[in-house]
């Protein structure tokens, strides 16, 4: 069946621009996670959505980062006024219970 789909797969942007990253989870998965993967840093938790509950935003590194999940399905991660340190692979994962099913990620490069 279809897995977690993320778009775009690669994004190059200039410092100061805003970017939007999209995640289509597996149908029926109520939980959706965003992680950031930087070289040598492992997976950094960003935000977690579970059903209709308020999201857990405890991992967002600054107020430039925000995410929403519309209709309990598609999610968008927005980074405003991008900085070079935002360059990383942004991973989305979804689950029904456990474990997590990951997408291929969006590689963001801020120049």
């Amino acid at each position, binding site marked *: 069946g279809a*897995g*977690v789909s993320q778009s775009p797969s690669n994004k190059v942007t200039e410092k100061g621009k805003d970017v939007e990253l999209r995640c289509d989870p597996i149908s029926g998965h109520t939980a959706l*996670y965003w*992680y950031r993967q930087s070289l*040598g*840093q*492992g*997976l950094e*938790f960003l935000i*977690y959505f579970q059903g209709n509950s308020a999201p857990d935003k405890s991992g967002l590194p600054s107020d430039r980062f925000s995410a929403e999940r519309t209709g309990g399905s598609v999610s968008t991660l927005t980074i405003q006024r991008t900085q070079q340190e935002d360059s990383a692979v942004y*991973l989305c*994962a979804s689950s029904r219970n*456990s*474990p*997590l099913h*990951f*997408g*291929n*990620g969006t590689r963001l490069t801020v120049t």
Partner: protein
Amino acid sequence: AQSVSQHNHHVILSEAASLELGCNYSYGGTVNLFWYVQYPGQHLQLLLKYFSGDPLVKGIKGFEAEFIKSKFSFNLRKPSVQWSDTAEYFCAVFTYFGTGTSLTVIP
């Protein structure tokens, strides 16, 4: 807050060598434990998981892991690695991940 430690950052082995990757966590309650693998150019995928029961769990491709509650550990093992095992391995407690271990297997 939970934390997950993977002490081996880079491991290089020859084919047929045995593998053990360490994973320790800090959480006193009931845990869900996972090992995920990321092959070059591919997405993260589940290798094996432990929720309860037999503390020795077996996953895909001959991997196994042992949950030792007293040591807060969930080490990954494979008796004989193959070149195709070259990948990044991540230990996770619930949805909290370690920093990963890069394994390179030399033919």
